[in-house]
């Protein structure tokens, strides 16, 4: 098998590597779900995946199209009600990491999935918060994965659906019983982490072949780079093979259902 890979595959494999074996992970649908399941099928077989539909410790064979696909329930250790999921398992502090996607993210990791424009007369209405507002504050830490562009990485989000560190980077300070918040952002160009002091996102690792200018051009604020800027490890053959198999299985399953 060739070791050539797409930028999307690079993003998914890098996001997967963020998860450690044995972590409990509250998984968002889409890219986070793809990355979390890749982690489970490669280096982290005992990662515990939890979806907001109530499916606890699930091991889907194909990626779910919706957050409540039957596959998630059938392959779960058990399935609980949605209030139990949010109250006992999430708010109760049983989740190590929440894995989220978003439509917009800003320099302080605030997430917008509500709308573009003004709330009363939106330019584009997006689906809304779903589980994210409380996942972001109740889970121990948060990983975020999304594709890099000026439309998605903006100076200020139009609306804070889900808290990163607030408009000034200080919104978690002094708040009791709150998680650490976002600890890394994985895009198709780079990996970013919040500055320990200011909480502003800083590029810590560039994916192979990506330049600083690529990131600057795709980011809506004057993005900073870490002094010790690293190169993200390339995906290995097995990671790519497992990912491609997973996606092919998924496509066959979803296309075949009448």
């Amino acid at each position: 098998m060739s070791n050539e890979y797409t930028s999307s595959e690079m993003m998914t494999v890098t996001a997967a590597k963020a998860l450690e074996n044995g972590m409990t992970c509250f998984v968002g649908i889409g890219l986070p779900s793809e990355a979390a399941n890749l982690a489970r099928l490669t280096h982290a077989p005992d990662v515990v995946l939890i979806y907001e539909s109530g499916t606890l410790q699930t091991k889907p064979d194909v990626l779910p199209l919706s957050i409540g696909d039957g596959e998630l329930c059938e392959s779960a250790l058990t399935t609980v009600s949605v209030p139990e999921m949010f109250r006992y398992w999430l708010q109760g502090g049983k989740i190590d990491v929440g894995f989220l996607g978003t439509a917009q993210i800003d320099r302080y990791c605030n997430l917008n999935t509500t709308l573009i424009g003004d709330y009363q007369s939106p330019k584009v209405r997006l689906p809304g918060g779903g589980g994210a507002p409380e996942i972001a504050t109740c889970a121990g830490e948060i990983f975020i994965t999304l594709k890099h562009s000026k439309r998605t990485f903006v100076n200020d989000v139009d609306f804070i659906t889900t808290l990163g560190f607030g408009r000034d980077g200080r919104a978690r300070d002094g708040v009791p019983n709150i998680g650490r918040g976002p600890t890394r952002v994985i895009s198709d160009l780079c990996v970013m982490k919040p500055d320990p002091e200011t909480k502003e996102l800083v590029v810590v690792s560039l994916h192979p072949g990506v330049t600083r200018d690529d990131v600057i051009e795709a980011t809506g604020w004057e993005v900073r780079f870490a002094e010790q800027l690293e190169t993200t490890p390339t995906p290995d053959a097995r990671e790519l093979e497992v990912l491609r198999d997973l996606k092919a299985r998924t496509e066959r399953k979803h296309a075949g259902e009448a």
Partner: protein
Amino acid sequence: MAEFLSLHDAVARYVEDGATVAMEGFTHLIPFAAGHEVIRQRKRDLTLIRMTPDLVYDQLIGAGCARKLIFSWGGNPGVGSLHRLRDAVEKGWPHKVEIFEHSHAAMACAFEAGAAGLPLAVLRGYVGSELPSVNDQIKFIECPFTGERLAAVPSVRPDVSLVHAQKADRKGNVLVEGIIGVQKEAILAAGKSIVTVEEVVDDLGASPNACVIPGWAIDAIAVAEKGAYPSYAHGYYPRDNRFYKEWDAIARDRDTFQTWLDENVHNAGGQAQ
């Protein structure tokens, strides 16, 4: 005590114009047959409550049944937008729909509080989110014991809740299996409740801790085979993911939607009558 009615009669009796209505089922067991019956009977000015409006509320909103919507995630799962919801919110077609937007955690807690007979739900929620600035149904209170600031939302107490389940026995006891969402909470929180089921059986065959809703806590049972289609019924039929994808094109355009609605709902007669 649950009464066995046709879906037509159950909706005619319990869903009134202007009512607050919850149709629940978290991706699974979405009560499409019941929703379509509400559309066919041209109910108006409803306050619709659902965590995930999904296609069923896209259809109800596009058909002009809704005046208000209380929800927490309004997309077509895995596909994109709910175009009828967006058209109503962005352009006011077929008329303006007022939205009250929450997070899932808050809605789940609000259903649970409704089932528990409480006026409000308390949660550690909305920290740093701007949702409280656009939804006056979200407030904050101080814990009287620790002083912690906590979010409070009104409990969900619908006039009528409609859910779909796998089966009922002949006394009207209902078994819900798989992803059970907030269906039990929706029934217990409501003034009146209608449960549609795939089939009526002699024995539910439920294990001791199964999600069983007693017949005496339900007002009406109606048989609606494939009543959750194109969502799914665990153990009966899978989710039609292809239709969820096709819906994007159907709902994007007002005329295409109207044609679909006429052919598949208004003139479809209602499979459960």
